[in-house]
């Protein structure tokens, strides 16, 4: 969406009207899902009303640490990524794919029921919006027309929320995934809580978004408020807690296959797979075939899987990636490197969940920095060695030739002498 097009098209909505937004979505037949506070975390769940949103709750994040905290204000979206992402709903952890019945004649195959109700997501952060787009590339309608993911995804209504307060472990800016929402939303909100009140700047991203707003009281945004909201989002780009190199990650990963750093991270990594569960783009699944007792009915279920699982790469009697070192390397080099080869983009959106939810606090931005340093060092060492070798060759040339030749010279010399002596050719 162009800046020029936006000025004048943004609207303002009072926080109290969130209830109307929620109602409008429900009336339109959506199952409304958004963040709620539960069990000392901000997780995603069905919202019975807008009151379920985590007003006044924030989070405190660090590697291996997550705490919710009371905010000084009543912001509804004043928190960054929780343990779950929207893949919980778009790419469920457990899903029946098909069932098979044994009949007299043979087998009857039946696809599992399509998910009925459309979903509306309220509170999709820009990083998560990008993650949805990334998963769309892997699992969506273009590569898999008619798939369950595709039909689920087609009906989703997205209310994105721009970021003004990045978390301590966020680095969406580095991954080009925030702090402002990219394309793909129906509505995008920017939350403002200040002396003027608690309200939202609302941007329309689709005809469906425009239609829905018809039932929600809004006023055109004045320039000042509009400007304040936009600069708050722009400022967030400089408040990120972490960063990644702007380019070259794909090549860095490709060149790091034998890096010593992997041994270092392997000494810390528990291969628990938390990162893959929390990551909004990790998509790996496995299948489970279940039969009921009589043996006439079988089902195939799809379950989330993790490349950290020892069985993941099982082949001919054992796992190909047996060591933790190889499994961590697989995860990181795929996420930041080979994802480009497979799906045309990075797999990382900078949400920082893997850093927060790693029980030992492994921080991939730190690992990347270390890999980069190691690569630079190796390159420098190589350049030095090449120079030194060039110098040595010149100096040592005469010596080297001497070492190789003596016996042959002696023998030939002797033979020459003998021949000369015998008069034979």
């Amino acid at each position, binding site marked *: 969406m162009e800046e020029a097009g936006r000025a004048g098209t943004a609207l303002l909505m009072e926080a109290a009207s969130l209830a109307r937004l929620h109602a409008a979505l429900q009336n339109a037949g959506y199952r409304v899902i958004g963040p709620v506070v539960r069990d000392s975390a901000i997780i995603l769940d069905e919202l019975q009303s807008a009151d379920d949103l985590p007003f006044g709750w924030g989070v405190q994040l660090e590697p291996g640490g997550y705490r919710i905290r009371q905010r000084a204000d009543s912001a509804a979206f004043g928190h960054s990524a929780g343990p779950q992402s929207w893949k919980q709903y778009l790419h469920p952890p457990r899903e029946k794919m098909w069932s098979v019945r044994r009949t007299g004649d043979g087998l009857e195959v039946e696809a599992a029921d399509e998910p009925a109700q459309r979903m509306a997501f309220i509170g999709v952060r820009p990083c998560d919006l990008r993650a949805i787009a990334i998963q769309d590339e892997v699992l969506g309608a273009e590569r898999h027309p008619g798939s369950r993911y595709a039909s689920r995804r087609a009906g989703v209504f997205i209310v994105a929320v721009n970021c003004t307060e990045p978390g301590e472990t966020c680095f969406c800016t580095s991954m080009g995934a925030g702090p402002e929402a990219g394309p793909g939303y129906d509505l995008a909100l920017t939350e403002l809580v200040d002396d003027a009140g608690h309200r939202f700047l609302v941007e329309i991203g689709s005809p469906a978004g425009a239609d829905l707003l018809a039932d929600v009281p809004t006023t055109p945004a004045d320039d000042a408020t509009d400007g304040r909201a936009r600069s708050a989002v722009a400022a967030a780009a400089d408040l990120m807690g972490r960063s990644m190199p702007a380019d070259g990650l794909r090549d860095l990963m490709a060149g790091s296959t034998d890096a010593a750093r992997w041994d270092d991270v392997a000494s810390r990594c528990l291969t628990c797979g938390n990162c893959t569960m929390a990551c909004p783009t990790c998509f790996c699944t496995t299948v489970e075939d279940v039969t009921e007792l009589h043996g006439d009915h079988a089902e195939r279920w799809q379950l989330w899987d993790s490349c950290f699982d020892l069985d993941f790469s*099982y082949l001919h009697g054992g796992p190909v990636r047996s060591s933790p070192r190889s499994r961590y390397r697989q995860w990181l080099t795929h996420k930041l490197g080979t994802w480009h080869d497979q799906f045309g983009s990075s797999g990382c959106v900078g949400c920082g969940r893997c850093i927060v939810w790693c029980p030992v606090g492994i921080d991939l931005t730190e690992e990347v920095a270390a890999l980069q340093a190691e690569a630079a060092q190796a390159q420098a060492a190589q350049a030095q060695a090449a120079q030194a070798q060039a110098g040595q060759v010149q100096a040592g040339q005469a010596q080297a030739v001497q070492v190789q030749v003596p016996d042959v010279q002696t*023998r030939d010399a002797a033979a020459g002498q003998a021949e000369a002596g015998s008069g034979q050719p």
Partner: protein
Amino acid sequence: MSGVSPSALAEHAFLQGLPAEHTTRIAEAATAVSAPAGYRFFEEGGTAGQFWLIRSGHVALDLHLPGRPPLIVETIGAGSLIGLSWVAPPQEWQYGAQAIQPTTAFELDGAAVLALCDSDPVLGYQLSRRLLTVAAERPHATRIRMADLYAAPRRRVGTS
């Protein structure tokens, strides 16, 4: 059986790259042989006095098993050689060798070749290098066979 021209000998893969003067000397110790299928080149336990550079055909190395046909442990084809036991004492064949197909070869007199090597160390060194390469390739191939790559993979309950 007939005399061997150095140029014919030089065509064999085993002697490739050998200087002409060396090939000429070796040719003096060589005879061209042509064996029908079933011809036994040597028996296990016999005196190892020659070796053969196989030009065409197919020879089996075997071990004698009482009451059973000989066990073939390896077959050697064109471009390679049979017979390594002539090089050093006890100069006794470790296997038997029998042509499986009609086979043509250059037969080399072991004692004559050893004498050539003793009198010409450069020739001896060149031949040794080639013999060493053959001697290294055989166990390599054998180890791969022992790795039993085509065997069914280890089983684990509940997997495909």
